[in-house]
């Protein structure tokens, strides 16, 4: 009778692709005392779950799709100071482990930014699969994790008048994935 008995303990079998219209992948970073946000669009994400329970989550996004509110700032993010889009035009992620506990999920994986690959941990929740109004099977996963941008060679900063750096090193990544079964 308890709700716990209804919670999926394994991910549903299938190949699930992110629906880009409803999904959102973004970053947030402390800048000048506030939180600055950007999004990655377009991007691709795929969750594969086979009959044996083996799971993997992978994703990629072009650096040219890093969106912020100003074209000049966007150009700066594309430059060698930040993502260096000319040399490293793609961002990528490949999971190495996915562990479910109730509706909570921990995903470990390799994140590649600016050509540097680092191990990261993402945590979040998995919804219950459902069939939408158009007959498609859907599954929602929300993940977030913190990375140190300097580990990927993104070192740019500016000193504030009091000597502190204007831009934090830690970046919060979020992925709200609306997955559709292929």
């Amino acid at each position, binding site marked *: 009778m308890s709700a716990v008995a209804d919670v999926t303990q394994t991910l549903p079998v299938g190949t699930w692709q992110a629906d880009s219209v409803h999904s959102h992948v973004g970053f947030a970073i402390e800048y000048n005392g506030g939180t600055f946000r950007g999004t990655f669009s377009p991007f691709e994400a795929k969750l594969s779950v086979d009959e044996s329970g083996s799971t993997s989550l992978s994703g990629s996004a072009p650096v040219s799709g890093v969106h912020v509110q100003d*074209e000049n700032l966007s*150009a700066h993010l594309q*430059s060698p100071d930040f993502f260096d889009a*000319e040399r490293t035009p793609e961002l990528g992620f490949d999971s190495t482990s996915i562990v479910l506990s109730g509706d909570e999920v921990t995903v470990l994986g390799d994140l590649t930014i600016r050509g540097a690959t680092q191990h990261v941990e993402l945590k979040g929740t998995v919804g219950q699969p459902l069939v939408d109004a158009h007959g498609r099977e859907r599954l929602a996963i929300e993940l977030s994790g913190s990375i140190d941008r300097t580990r990927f060679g993104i070192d740019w900063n500016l000193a504030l008048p009091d000597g502190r750096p204007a831009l934090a090193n830690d970046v919060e990544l979020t992925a709200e994935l609306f997955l559709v079964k292929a």
Partner: protein
Amino acid sequence: MRILGISGSLRRDSYNTKLLRTAAELLPEGVELEIWGGLKDVPPYDEDDDGAAAPAAAERLRKALAAADGVLFATPEYNSSVPGQLKNALDWASRPFATNVLRNKPVAVVGASAGAFGAVWAQAELRKVLAASGARVVEGDVAVGRAQDRFDAEGRLADDDLREQLAEVVRVLVETAAARSAAAVAA
């Protein structure tokens, strides 16, 4: 391959222009270095004068930068910083910001000064300005201090260690520019 050399000094007998001439002798085969002579003609940056038709001297600068595979800057140091006319020229070059001609352009910075330190502060500031404009600033520097003692009667850099450092900076600049050209051809 074409490297553009820009000296931050306008003086006829400028040590920095001599430094660029020395760099021209140290280039690998097939690479040309053209020293840009238009710096003095660039008017003060005024956004009202920019737009569809910028002043001719600023347009010439933008075209020269756009046509170059890489740029070697040699700067003196005025009051611990970049000479005003060079900074002003880069202010023209960096507009419109999002699509400016310096974006991803391989650039290197060297410098000479009459003082002991060889324009190291001006070089650091120039690298900062270039990076902020979106250029790819390559590693390596050459600081020619006491420049009045470092050039021979023909105006060549006469210090073997400094010549070697200059050759290395030029080599890295050319290598970076060549890799970029090759990637552009492949794409």
